[in-house]
C-alpha cells in the first residue's frame, strides 16, 4: 500500500478542516472494510485518511419518537442490530445491517461507510432510501442535509464535495402502521455480494388494508442504488393485494437497468427485481400489520 498520512479527528470541525486541507486527496476512515481494501489494490490513493470513529456525532446511535433514529456515519453494524429499541423500530434497516459481510466485518463496517462507498450493490442503501433517510453532511460552509437517494452519483462516487464529511444519517420515526423489509439474492447463504436487492417500505391506513404510501429502492441493477418512485406510487391508495403488488413489481422491473457480469445476467437480475419486490412488499406489509 502507498503510504499516507493518518489523522484521528476528535470533533466534527476538526474532521472537516482535516478533510478540507487536502481536498480530493483526503478520504474518511470509518470501519475501513472498503477503503483499506481499495487502497491496498491501488484503486484509491488518498494522501490522508481521517479517522472519525472518535467523533461523538459520527458514533451516535440514538432514537426518539419525535426525531427518529440518529445513526452516526461510523457506527458499526453490530451496534445497530444489538440495540433492541432500534431493532424493534427499524427492522428494515436491521435486515441489511445483519447481512453485510460476516460477523468480523459487521464489527467494523458502518452503514454510513456503505453509503459513501457508493457501490451499486450496497445492501445498506436501499433500506435507507425506503425509510426516507436523510444524510447530515458537515463541510467548510456549514451543515447541509440531503436525501439518501441523491448521495450516490456513479459506481464508487458520492455527492460529497471536497472537505465535506457525512456525519450521520437521520431516519424519520416510523409512521403509524408502517413497515419495511430488505432482501437480496445471493447464490449462497452468507458473505456474498447481491446479484439484486430490493428494499421496500409501506404505510397502511387505520384499517391496515389500504396502502397510504410506499417507497421501493433497488440494489445491483443500475450504476447506483435506485429509488423507484413510480413503483411506490403505483401502490398509493390501493388495497394491499397481490394485484397492486404485481403492478409495483412491474414498475420496479421496468426501472431496473442492470448489466450482465460474473454475478448475473440482465434477464436474471430483472426477474429477481420482480421476485424481491413482491417478497419485500409482502414482508413490509406484514410488519406494518404487526406494528
Amino acid at each position, binding site marked *: 500500500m502507498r503510504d499516507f498520512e493518518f489523522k*484521528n479527528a476528535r470533533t466534527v470541525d476538526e474532521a472537516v478542516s482535516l478533510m478540507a486541507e487536502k481536498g480530493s486527496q483526503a478520504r474518511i476512515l470509518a470501519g475501513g472494510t472498503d477503503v483499506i481494501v481499495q487502497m491496498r489494490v491501488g484503486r484509491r490513493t488518498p494522501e490522508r485518511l481521517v479517522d472519525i470513529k472518535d467523533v461523538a456525532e459520527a458514533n451516535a446511535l440514538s432514537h426518539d419518537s419525535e426525531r427518529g433514529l440518529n445513526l452516526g456515519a461510523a457506527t458499526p453494524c453490530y451496534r445497530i442490530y444489538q440495540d433492541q429499541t432500534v431493532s424493534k423500530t427499524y427492522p428494515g434497516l436491521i435486515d441489511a445491517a445483519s447481512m453485510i459481510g460476516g460477523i468480523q466485518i459487521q464489527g467494523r463496517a458502518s452503514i454510513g461507510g456503505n453509503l459513501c462507498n457508493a457501490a451499486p450493490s450496497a445492501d445498506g442503501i436501499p433500506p435507507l432510501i425506503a425509510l426516507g433517510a436523510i444524510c447530515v453532511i458537515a463541510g467548510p460552509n456549514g451543515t447541509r442535509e440531503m436525501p439518501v437517494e441523491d448521495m450516490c452519483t456513479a459506481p464508487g462516487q458520492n455527492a460529497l464535495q471536497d472537505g465535506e464529511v457525512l456525519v450521520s444519517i437521520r431516519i424519520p420515526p416510523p409512521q403509524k402502521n408502517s413497515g419495511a423489509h430488505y432482501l437480496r439474492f445471493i447464490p449462497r447463504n452468507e458473505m456474498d455480494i447481491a446479484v439484486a436487492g430490493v428494499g421496500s417500505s409501506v404505510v397502511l391506513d387505520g384499517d391496515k388494508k389500504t396502502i397510504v404510501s410506499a417507497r421501493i429502492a433497488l440494489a445491483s441493477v443500475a450504476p447506483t442504488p435506485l429509488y423507484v418512485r413510480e413503483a411506490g406510487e403505483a401502490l398509493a391508495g390501493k388495497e394491499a393485494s397481490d394485484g397492486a403488488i404485481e403492478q409495483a413489481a412491474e414498475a420496479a422491473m421496468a426501472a431496473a437497468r442492470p448489466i450482465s457480469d460474473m454475478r448475473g445476467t440482465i434477464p436474471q437480475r430483472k426477474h429477481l427485481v420482480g421476485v424481491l419486490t413482491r417478497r419485500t412488499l409482502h414482508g413490509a406489509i406484514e410488519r406494518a400489520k404487526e406494528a
Partner: protein
Amino acid sequence: MPGKIHVQTKINGEETDFLCEARQSLLEVLRDVLGFTGSKEGCNDGNCGACTVELNGRIVTSCLVLGVEAEGKEITTIEGVASADGLHPVQQAFLENAALQCGICTPGFIVASKALLEKEPDADEGRIRHWLAGNLCRCTGYDKIIRAVMDAGEKMKTGGR
C-alpha cells in the same frame, strides 16, 4: 510522507507499544513487527477470516484494521487463547475432532469460535455456522469444525472456561 507512528496498546493482556507506518495493517504489525505469527494472512481483503483477532471484545479481520487504529485498544490474538494451565476448550476440541488439516484457517476459527462461545455456549449448529460464515476453510468441509465448536460449547457450559 510521515515517518513511523508510536502506538500504545494492550495485546493478550500485556501493555505493548510499537512503531508502525500508517499503511501497515494490524495483521502486518502483529506478524512482522511484534512476531505474533499465529494470525495468518489468507486473502488480505477481509473475506477469509484467517487473520481474525479480538479488538476491544469484538472479532475483526486484522487485515482490515490499520496498526495505528490499535492505539488505546485491547487486542486478543490466537497467542492469547491458551493459558499456563493448558489449551482452551476450543483448542482442545479442535484437536479431538480433527477439525484442521493444513491449519492456516485454524487460528481465525478458534479466535472467532471462542468469542461466540464465551457469550453463547449454548449456540446451536445454525448459529455457529452463521457466526463462522466469515471464516473460510479449504480443507475440512467445515463439518468437523462445527462439531468441534459444538463440543467445546458443551464443555464450557459444564465448568470449562
